């Protein structure tokens, strides 16, 4: 209690552990309890079992359950309960052996192959593929024929057959983290490879291995029981498979003999699978929030009903957002508001810029205009009107897909931030430009094709035909953004919404794309909403600016006014953080040392 805790960051950090989450999952808890009971019963078979597994009461074969033998006796007069317990011992131990062998072979080789790659990777992968191509049952039968009916031997061989699964899993996971920056940072710190693997890589591999093991153990039990059921096991030792075999042979005399081992096998395998699922769910960590259903009584506002007319005197605005609020329902029933009371408008041929930092709600606002909010999002309040009709009428809680469907692509189009991830790698650029035009404008393919080539030339692509035929990975980021701009203007929209259109681009390419956007905007006279965090981009393009902070509009005005004479302290802070025109090597913030809130 000697250290003062800074305000706003005090308190105990509540963090649920993976184990905690598994236990809280009813299925996970059931599976664990079941496995513990089965495991304990098998482990303490010597204590729990009333008879030895091979003690046989010749005078009392195939006895019905009850009395001296709780679950009856089998065809050899042996106590079924005792054999079930002893059988569990062998069955579970053999499954454990199988999984251990598979892990012991697959995990280290996978780690080495994934981490170092090179010749070991190629060789090990070749072996893994070879083992995978072997018919498992055939191999097991041959081993049994050659080396005798040993459960252990069979399970070791089966473990080897299963090891490629672990090898591949480990290798893939390791490859995915091998080049993570934190592994690089550990290398720079001088950690040995062994330490890096133990500390940074194993933690990632652990969980998938546990999940895989729960499934492999189930498979091992099934295979082992299967072999014994076929009569290939060691008859001197009870296993669930041997009991199953005995039950099957006497199915007409005492069908119950079949039930007990089946139950045991089913329960164990089901618990293992459920445990695997629970571990996976716990690791995914995401609390699933289902959208709240409307109470049955509350009537859904009918979409077909005539829309209310927009407020008189505002019809001339191309787009008007009034008191818009967007929220996400939380697990506890509350709604987390990310956009709150946002109002602005844009007229034809105007460029409006929405500026803010991450988390300011600027993209959420843009997405509500486009109707691209995630399904869980709710319009909590306010309205959006486009060209004199509502797309979100007052009282609506979602964006009407029906109303926007008619506008999107035709009258409102979108330029995204990441050009590369917004082009489908499986189709040529040409087909991605042509398709929307044939659908939206209803023109023929040939016509659309000619138009697409024209557009590509217009957006400054030097060889339109080549780009038209190219796949997205064959062009640079700047080119891809030009293609998307061409796509955005292809259907002659009235409003283009550009979400950080130059953020992912190099600065020289950014300048070119800004030039292009400006030229296009002038030529076509479209309204443009440009969402950005860069005041340079704002100064370059915008007529008016809306500054957002934490979901609210803090300032709005003409671009020159806002950039030269910001009134709101937040806008002032933002502009003060710009490095252009600052004295180098000087403090940018008034109170930098007070950090912690960065």
């Amino acid at each position, binding site marked *: 209690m000697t250290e003062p805790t800074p305000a706003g960051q005090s308190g105990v950090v509540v963090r649920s552990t993976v184990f905690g989450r598994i236990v809280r999952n009813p299925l996970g808890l059931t599976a664990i309890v079941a496995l513990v009971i089965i495991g304990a019963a098998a482990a303490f078979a010597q204590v729990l079992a009333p008879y030895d597994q091979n003690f046989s009461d010749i005078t009392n074969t195939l006895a019905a359950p009850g009395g001296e033998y709780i679950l009856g006796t089998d065809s050899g007069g042996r106590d079924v309960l005792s054999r079930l317990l002893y059988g569990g011992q062998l069955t579970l131990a053999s499954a454990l052996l199988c999984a251990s062998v598979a892990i012991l072979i697959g995990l280290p080789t996978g780690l080495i192959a994934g981490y170092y790659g090179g010749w070991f990777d190629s060789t090990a992968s070749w072996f893994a593929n070879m083992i995978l191509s072997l018919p498992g049952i055939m191999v097991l039968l041959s081993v049994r024929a050659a080396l005798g009916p040993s459960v252990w031997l069979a399970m070791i061989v089966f473990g080897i057959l299963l090891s490629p699964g672990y090898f591949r899993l480990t290798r893939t996971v390791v490859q995915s983290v091998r080049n993570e*920056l934190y592994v690089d940072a550990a290398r720079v710190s001088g950690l040995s490879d062994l330490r890096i693997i133990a500390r940074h890589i194993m933690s990632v591999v652990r969980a998938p291995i546990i999940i895989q093991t729960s499934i492999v153990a189930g498979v091992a039990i099934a295979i082992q029981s299967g072999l014994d059921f076929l009569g290939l096991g060691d008859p001197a030792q009870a296993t669930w498979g041997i009991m199953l075999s005995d039950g099957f042979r006497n199915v007409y005399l005492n069908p119950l003999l079949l039930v007990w081992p089946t139950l045991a096998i089913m329960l164990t395998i089901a618990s293992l699978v459920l445990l695997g699922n629970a571990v996976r769910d716990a690791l995914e960590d995401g609390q699933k929030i289902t959208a709240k259903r409307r109470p049955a009584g509350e009537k859904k506002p009918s979409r077909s009903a005539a829309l209310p007319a927009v407020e008189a005197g505002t019809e001339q605005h191309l787009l008007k957002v009034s008191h818009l609020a967007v929220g996400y329902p939380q697990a506890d029933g509350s709604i987390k508001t990310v956009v709150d009371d946002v109002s602005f408008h844009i007229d034809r041929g105007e460029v409006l810029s929405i500026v803010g930092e991450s988390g300011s709600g600027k993209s959420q606002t843009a997405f509500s205009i486009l109707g691209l909010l995630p399904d869980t999002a709710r319009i909590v309040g306010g309205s959006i009107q486009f060209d004199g009709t509502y797309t979100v009428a007052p009282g609506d809680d979602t964006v009407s897909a029906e109303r926007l469907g008619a506008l999107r692509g035709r009258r409102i189009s979108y330029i995204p931030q990441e050009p590369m991830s917004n082009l489908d790698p499986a189709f040529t650029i040409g087909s991605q430009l042509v398709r929307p035009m044939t659908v939206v404008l209803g023109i023929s393919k040939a016509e659309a094709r000619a138009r697409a080539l024209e557009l590509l030339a217009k957006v400054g692509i030097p060889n339109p035909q080549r780009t038209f035929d190219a796949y997205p990975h064959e062009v640079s980021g700047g080119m891809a953004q030009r293609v998307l701009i061409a796509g955005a203007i292809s259907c002659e929209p009235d409003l283009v919404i550009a979400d950080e259109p130059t953020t992912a681009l190099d600065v020289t390419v950014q300048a070119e794309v800004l030039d292009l956007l400006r030229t296009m905007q002038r030529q076509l006279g479209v309204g443009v909403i440009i969402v950005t965090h860069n005041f340079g981009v704002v100064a370059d393009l915008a007529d008016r600016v809306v500054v957002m902070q934490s979901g609210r509009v803090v300032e709005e005005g003409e671009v020159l006014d806002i950039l030269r004479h910001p009134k709101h302290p937040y806008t002032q802070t933002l502009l003060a953080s710009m490095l252009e025109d600052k004295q180098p090597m000087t403090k940018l913030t008034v109170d930098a040392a007070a*950090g912690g809130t960065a």
Partner: protein
Amino acid sequence: MNGTPILTATDVVVEYPGKGFRAKPFRALHGVSIAIEQGKTLGLVGESGSGKTTLGRAMLGLAPVTGGAITFDGQDITHASRRQRRALSRDIQVVFQDPYTSLNPALEVGEILAEPLAVQGVAPREAKARIRELLDRVGLPQDAVHRLPREFSGGQRQRVAIARALALSPRLIVCDEPVSALDLTTQARVLDLFLEIQQDTGVSYLFVSHDLDVVRHISHDVAVMYRGEIVEQGPAEHVTRTPDHPYTQRLLLASPVPDPVRQEERRANRLRLLAEQREQDAQAGAIVGAVVAAPDDGAEGISVGDRVR
């Protein structure tokens, strides 16, 4: 003005093996030479794919150096072994671009900070005290020790990364785009922190960034990289305000300024510069073209003069 260089790179070549059998290796750096002075910052600016990050990684031993030499404090570290690297990690550290992937999501901040200390054999007790000091240094609360990286914002994570780099009091920190993933106001605070640390500890920085404004703000000297080569190098003020090389000139004028009137001017200047450079290129290209085009001119009956026209 010329202090002793703490780190020098001479004609460094980095080549990545090509994909496939007997494929040509990819040459990321074509003989790059730089020097970083004690207590100073060398800004390294360039676009994506220019090789600026590769140069930083070469110094850290994370990129395959196939030619040239890197010396630290007079000692050749071009192909330092793991053992030498471990010793070097006391002197050379790194802050990466992405604060989201540069911290192991499974480790608590305390464990992350303890790692470099443990490698150097610092006793746990001393390490604890040092970690407390480091958190103070970068302006994080003390209870951060038991928190996971994901419980912090981007700026705070970058502070953790800076604290990790500072743990062993290095003499050089390679900063690979450490502020480009951050918001404007956060970037300002983190830059302040970098400056403050340099003033207090006299550490040198190799500051890699694509943003000329950031580099101008924090660097004493600036090197401009373009396609795996350094095209211009010199005092920050000169390189970032009145550059000589055409590429740097383009780079400078491409970065928009936050004032509509000045931006319009800059835009006009940029377009004028581009037109001028295109003309120069065309003239130079005509001469070069006349010389170069001749040997691989497959078409018959076309004279060199025709091609130029």
